[in-house]
């Protein structure tokens, strides 16, 4: 188990290194000039600026400087907001995204497991059809449309109530987080519901459930002890990709709901071609996602003994 964890960590470090290198060379390939702006620049100023940012060095040297800084945890200074370090930006805005993401994951997992179990119990009856219809809708409608429509609904609800029941956008209180977290978690919830449903159905027709029935266990106990706990396992496996989906989904939701999270900052940096911020946040996000997947995989090994053997 420890060997497995160690191997996965090593692989993760390698992936992060690749992400960092790809980011570096991709950014160097970008057409255009990072120092080109509306102000006219004398050659001397230009040379000074190039020296300051290390742009006068050969590419290989720049790459090693970049890797050395990265290893030290220094992601550089923003190009457009020159007094801000990328580290500061991440430190300030990532917690916001993290809170939103955690809420969304909780919402998605709780909802997915609950709805999935319900549809399996009420298989081919109206609750099943109603929930599966909503699930298919949740999978098919892009998140920015859901975000926009829920904003529209909030505007109308607030107008009807005469006061602000739930804020339409912004950040601060739990009320601000509620709707964005639900929108963010919706796609994942729909996916988890489907997964939970098919996994429940598989378990329901399995031998050990029949044995439990034959023993005369009450249905509630069979459900809690035999069906539910086994059916939940596949849901845990997809939590890694789900975290990735929710993180990148956050880009859109934060943009639409005007939430000051790292995702919105990243998208804005991309739109303004703020090179250092793009590089820094990409590497940060990449490392975060890679290690979240590893953490989930390793945890899964602890939860399900069958995986450990492989």
């Amino acid at each position, binding site marked *: 188990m420890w060997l497995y964890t160690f191997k996965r960590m090593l692989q993760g470090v390698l992936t992060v290194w690749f992400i960092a290198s790809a980011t570096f060379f991709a950014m160097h390939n970008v057409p255009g000039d990072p120092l080109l702006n509306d102000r006219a620049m004398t050659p001397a100023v230009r040379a000074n600026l190039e020296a300051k940012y290390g742009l006068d060095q050969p590419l290989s040297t720049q790459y090693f400087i970049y890797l050395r800084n990265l290893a030290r945890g220094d992601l550089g200074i923003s190009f457009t907001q020159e007094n801000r370090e990328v580290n500061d930006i991440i430190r300030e805005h990532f917690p916001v995204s993290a809170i939103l993401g955690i809420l969304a994951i909780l919402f998605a997992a709780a909802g997915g497991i609950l709805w999935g179990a319900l549809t399996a119990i009420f298989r081919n009856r109206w609750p099943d059809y109603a929930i599966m219809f909503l699930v298919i809708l949740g*999978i098919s409608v*892009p998140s920015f*449309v859901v975000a926009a429509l829920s904003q529209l609904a909030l505007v109308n609800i607030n107008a009807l109530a005469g006061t602000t029941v739930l804020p339409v956008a912004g950040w601060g209180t739990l009320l601000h987080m509620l709707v964005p977290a639900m929108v963010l978690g919706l796609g994942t919830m729909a996916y988890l519901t489907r997964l939970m449903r098919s996994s429940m159905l598989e378990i329901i027709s399995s031998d050990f459930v029949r044995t439990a029935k034959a023993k005369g266990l009450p249905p509630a106990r069979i459900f809690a002890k035999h069906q539910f706990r086994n059916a939940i396992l596949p849901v845990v496996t997809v939590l890694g990709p789900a975290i990735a989906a929710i993180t990148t989904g956050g880009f859109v939701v934060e943009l639409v709901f005007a939430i000051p999270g790292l995702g919105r900052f990243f*998208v804005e940096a991309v739109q303004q071609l703020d090179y250092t911020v793009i590089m820094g946040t990409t590497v940060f996000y*990449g490392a975060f996602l*890679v290690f979240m997947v590893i953490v989930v995989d390793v945890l899964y090994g602890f939860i399900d003994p069958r995986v450990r053997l492989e």
Partner: protein
Amino acid sequence: MVNFTAADFTALTTQREVQGISRPALSYWQDAWIRLKANKRALVSLYLVIGLLLFTIAGPWVWRVNPAAQDLDQIGQPPGTDRAGRIVDDIQPWFGDEAAGVTSVRVSGDATTQAVRLQWSALPGANGHRVYRNMFALGQERAYGIPIAEIFDNSTLYFVDRLDLKPRHYYYFVVALGPQGELLDSFESIEVDVQRVTTVDEAIEQGLGEVADGLQVGDRVNMTWHPLGTDYLGRDMLARLMAGARVSLLIGIGAPFLFVLFGVIYGSMAGFVGGRTDQLMMRFADFVIALPFLLFMILFKIAFGIGPGESGVFPLLVALVVLMWPATARLVRGQVLQIREQAYISASQLLGAKTNYLIIRHMIPNTLGVVLVTVTFAIPSAIFTEAFLSFIGMGVAPPTPSWGSMSNEGIKTMLTTPHELIFPAALISITVLAFNLLGDGLRDALDARMRNTE
């Protein structure tokens, strides 16, 4: 002791057709088609997909409107708007009427989509005025609407509003400004019904009437018909949706086909060769899978850049193919490894089949079902990716329309003109829904092992 005579030994008559096949043999694909036909949801989705393809391919031949042409008389029109309009003179400069005794704010001449001419007399204590326009009456919050003019002096008491006028009801507010340009409490308002008009030249340009007909000022004409309305630049929504469908479906269907093809070649090679090469190839595939997908899509798009006049469709395709192939490769490799161990392959080899024959006769037909299902499920994710990237401004570059970029444009004006968001968003949703359900149906029909327990 029994004594047998020759009579005891009669030849048995051969009974034929004891275990005959009573029904005609079904090929794999015939069987799959029967299963698919029995699945109502999948069949409806199939029709939807065919309809979408028709909309995309044949649509622009039927609805021959240039998706880039702007109809400046009809900007942001929802579908089903009244098209009747009047022809007026070209716009003339106007500096207020000489008419004395203007007490409160009033409209000079007709209020038309060409111009609304406002005139008022100085408000008490005003050092200037600011003109606001709103679509709603003044509420408790005293939100005046959008400021359209600011005049810091009392000698100019008129204003011509030509800003994006639509044939609808407007409220104008003239608010007094203090010495520092601050808003004072006193204001006047007027409600205006704006009529749709156009000029002779524009009417001819739009093909609303022949010059020979003698279009004259004052004639009533019907404006160009836009069945699904127009967008914020006055472009025909239907034509744009069709053009956008070409881009979105090119990416949505083209990319999956390409990366599945690549994945199939890669995976079958790895599975077939086996050994160290297989290990190495699969390590590489694992590595690509571990990369955060959307982050790398964004990175690719930045690295490629979009030059002037380029639509950015090609880089998007390349990026999708480069990042999405490993899942298919893994799947196909697994299939190939599995099939290789099957008894019928050994039997075929014993009968002297060569590798090429094995691949063409056994490997490809037996993996085709799985591959087809993969393609169908990959299409929605590719369409979503395109929409997501276009939404954050990293997808297809304007003016090339795609459903994602159209939604992105529509979301900005969703309160006033929701149709600009609803149509592209609905098309994305329907397409994704259709391919998802079709994928479910195909999986159930084609692959007995993946058949789900529904």
